[in-house]
């Protein structure tokens, strides 16, 4: 049994513009000790998927209308809220993108880390403080004894993200959901934070769901990748397979559009248009209005191609092995 099994998750938003299928049948699994990357551009449903897992979708307008989210065999989608509270922050933790706005400005960082510990572990304040100190030290905050009494505004962006990680990991969760944890940070700090997550993952055998739009981060940190487009899974594969053999035209397009894959100064490959808003998702394959390989057939829901080893593609006209090999060959 996988640590987390998301099965045909459907999260829709009920608005004046109608029922918006932001996440519409997403399935994937995360094993213990594994890092799964969820990638896609803005509006593809990455964050809604993550927030659905912990039922943090504001309701209304949002609602999980179908599917199961099995965490260690229990369905989070239907679990009573008081039981879910014991899972949140304890067995599953989240790190958000914005370290600047995710911390409460009127409490010290120590208070905020201790809150989670006191809530989920049977310890006294004294002990919680020493766990908090230990966590701050682990995540590389200088002088934890002094920093623990600082307020968020007294820290830099990188330090705040470290505090968020300390808070998320203070109860040694089995699953960490990291929603664009390094997007707001500089590359040298990003490298530190990703390394830190990897290190803590190794010691705890923690599963990590890493949401990002940065394919470089995916290549370096993930074991498995789920490519989302307009609320659906386009392709899923091991990280090595995905970059070696991109098979969905959208994945192939994304990889080709990266400036580091092109010759300097040459024109970049582009995918026409942009991700449609959930009000305008096309019929059938949702990529059909931007896809260079689209045919009338693409007006119907695309079939699954199973390439083995967990490499799955939902497309009427997937790239052949030769075509995708030619793409990754260009990178030489």
């Amino acid at each position, binding site marked *: 049994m996988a640590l987390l099994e998301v099965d045909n998750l459907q999260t829709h938003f009920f608005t004046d513009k109608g029922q918006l299928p932001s996440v519409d049948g997403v399935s994937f699994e995360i094993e213990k000790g594994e890092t799964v990357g969820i990638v896609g*551009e*803005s509006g593809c449903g990455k964050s809604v998927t993550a927030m659905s897992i912990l039922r943090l979708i504001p309701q209304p307008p949002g609602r999980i209308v179908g599917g199961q989210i099995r965490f260690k065999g229990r369905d989070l989608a239907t679990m009573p809220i008081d039981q879910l509270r014991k899972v949140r922050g304890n067995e599953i933790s989240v790190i958000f993108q914005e370290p600047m706005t995710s911390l409460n400005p009127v409490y010290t960082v120590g208070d905020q880390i201790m809150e989670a510990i006191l809530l989920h572990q049977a310890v006294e304040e004294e002990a919680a403080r020493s766990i908090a100190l230990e966590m701050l030290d682990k995540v590389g905050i*200088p002088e934890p004894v002094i920093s623990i009494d600082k307020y968020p505004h007294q820290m*830099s*962006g*990188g*330090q705040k993200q470290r505090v968020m990680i300390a808070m998320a990991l203070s109860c040694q969760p089995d699953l960490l959901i990291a929603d664009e944890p390094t997007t707001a940070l*500089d*590359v*040298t*700090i*990003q*490298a*530190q934070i*990703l*390394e830190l997550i990897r290190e803590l993952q190794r010691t705890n055998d923690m599963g990590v769901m890493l949401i990002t*739009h*940065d*394919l*470089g*981060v*995916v*290549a*370096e*940190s*993930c074991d498995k990748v789920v490519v989302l487009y307009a609320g659906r899974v386009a392709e899923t594969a091991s*990280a*090595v397979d995905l*970059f*070696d053999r991109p098979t969905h035209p959208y994945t192939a*397009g*994304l*990889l080709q*559009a*990266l*400036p*580091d*894959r*092109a010759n*300097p*100064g040459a*024109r*970049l*490959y*582009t*995918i026409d248009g*942009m*991700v449609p808003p959930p009000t305008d998702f096309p019929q059938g394959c949702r990529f059909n209005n931007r896809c260079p390989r689209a045919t009338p057939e693409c007006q119907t829901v695309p079939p699954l191609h199973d390439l083995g080893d967990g490499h799955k593609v939902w497309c009427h006209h997937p790239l052949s092995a030769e075509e995708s090999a030619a793409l990754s060959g260009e*990178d030489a």
Partner: protein
Amino acid sequence: MTRPQSERTEPLVKVRGLKKYFPIFKGFFRQRVGDVKAVDGISFDIMPAETVAMVGESGCGKTTAGRSLLRLIEPNAGTVHFRGKNIPDLAPEELRKMRRYMQIIFQDPYSSLNPRQTIGQIIGTPLVLHGLAKNQREAEGMAKELLEKVGLQARYTSRYPHEFSGGQRQRIGIARAVALNPDFIVCDEAVSALDVSVQAQVLNLLLDLKDEYNLSYLFITHDLSVVRHVSDRVVVMYLGQVAENAPNKAIFSKPRHPYTQALLSAVPRADPRRKRQRIMLPGDVPKPSNPPSGCRFHTRCPLAEARCSQAVPDAHEVGEDHIVVCHLYDGRTEPIDVLEEMARRKGA
């Protein structure tokens, strides 16, 4: 665009010793207690039709540098020679006329367009002000052409900014910048807020316009894969100063400064098989209000020595048009590989 023969090999923009300090006031009497030394004496050239990328982390002063050389904020010291004039010396009226030739594209496509003006007004008004169009009507017509040039439909001139997506707004910002037929455009993180597929579209557009208008760009960005793709020359900034300035090829194949090497090694590559060893820099960038003594990078540099905290390093020319400001290159020009050197020192 014709320039006299003599100017052709001259830099289009020549920046020397540019400084911008922001004062810090404290207490009831608002006494000046110090300065944030955002840009602290930088010099570089931009040649005609050249793209210079300015890179560095948050707080290194790259945005301030771009704005103070256009005098969108007033620099404290230094010269910026452009079209035979020193920009910081220009009287307001002269500066206004000069603006035609130097434009900027901002990072945030959501806050850089006036929400109460139509796209036609946004692009057309500067054309009227600078006398390129006789009236607003003629300007609208020119705006339509410009919109088509940046890949949008001509009829969009009557629409308002909120009706467009981020990528489309960035195209409008580009149309506004090229409307006056400038020589030089500062692109301040112009593609950073865009998704990969849209970013590629906008980068292609910028490259096309560069060829068409013979433009020079100062491309301010933190994204090194974009830098590698678009730039002819790269200026690496750290804490308000230039660390290294070199042609694109040299920066990416033979980076000299330890900071440049660390920055390049920190960029994740979209290739799971090519995992590299990283130069991990400890800690954060120090505060520009109280920069470290000597070489400003010494607090994070893996190869720092005693002299690095004591003496300010000189600028060394280590190759053709390749300048590095680092003590390691006192009397040597060959690159020192930081990881190898760290291993060697550990062994010794």
